[in-house]
């Protein structure tokens, strides 16, 4: 397998590295806030993947200048990512609202402590 494209496409390789830092944080960390922050990093890096593919070297932002020689970067990934950013913040808002309620109910935002609280409750109910 020829791995030289990885060097030439260092831009994408770095974006992937960023994505995985975020992804690892989401799945590994038990703190709910940390999970949301990881999700933010993960999603923002995915946005960077999209914007990378639309970029043309020496191009400019896709706002028409009337000059026929201007090279514009692709506007479609920009539109998609505008939508995705909004979707991301919407998810974030609902997530934080849930975190607040979880904290009020269980007194903690650490996943393992919530699980043990639930298990204690479960055991109690089964016994009764």
């Amino acid at each position, binding site marked *: *397998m020829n791995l030289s494209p*990885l060097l*030439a*496409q260092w*831009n994408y*390789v*770095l*974006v*992937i*590295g*960023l994505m995985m*830092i975020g992804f*690892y*944080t989401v*799945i*590994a*960390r038990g*703190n709910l*806030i*940390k999970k949301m*922050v990881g999700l*933010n*990093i993960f999603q*923002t890096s995915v*946005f*960077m993947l999209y*914007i*990378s*593919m*639309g970029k*043309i*070297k020496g*191009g*400019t932002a*896709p*706002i*028409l200048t009337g000059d026929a020689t201007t090279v514009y*970067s*692709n*506007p*479609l990934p*920009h*539109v998609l*990512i*505008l939508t995705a950013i*909004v*979707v991301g*913040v*919407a*998810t974030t*808002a*609902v997530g*934080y*609202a*849930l975190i*607040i*309620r979880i904290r009020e*109910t269980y007194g903690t*935002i*650490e996943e393992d402590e919530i699980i043990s609280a639930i298990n204690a409750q479960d055991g109690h109910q089964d016994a009764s």
Partner: protein
Amino acid sequence: MSEFFLNAILMIFLAFIAIMAIRQNRLFGVVMLSGAYSLVAATWFVVADAVDVAFTEAAVGAGVSTVLALGTLSLVGVEEKKRPIEPFALVIALGTGLLLLLAVLDMPSYGIATTPIQLHVAPHYLLESEREIGVPNVVTSVLASYRGFDTFGETIVVFTAAIGVFLIIGGWTRAERSGQETSPANENRSNHTQEKSDA
């Protein structure tokens, strides 16, 4: 060439912030780093010609998300329990990363004007938008007209988020809707009965 260096420096800076954010245990710092990450990403978007995206990322990722996170933090406490590295999660993340590196092998080269995405569909927007829509900012014409239905969906998503948050923690909307004052005790009534029934 300066674009090249700016690009590289911003990316390395982003990686630095991301690693700091996951290593940090004080959540206040984590949230601020997350905001900083969005802000630097917004700068990177400007370098990559995505000015509209940069604007939104700065307003939303760095602004709104951080404010929401800080509001949440003041309610839930600011320390994270220290944890060792999770090997299982690391394997999953690395596996996903390898799959993506595999994708890079055959990707069209970065920044070239002859890739499929530059030759199909997008030229129509750049060439015809002036005649068909008459708006110089092509992002706006694609967003509001060509793919106006996506943007309609996006508006609905924002609406959905608001409805969701109001349902979950929106005590004040209850009071507004029924014209009576709601105290937090009343709101959490159900939780308390739950706790009582457990006791």
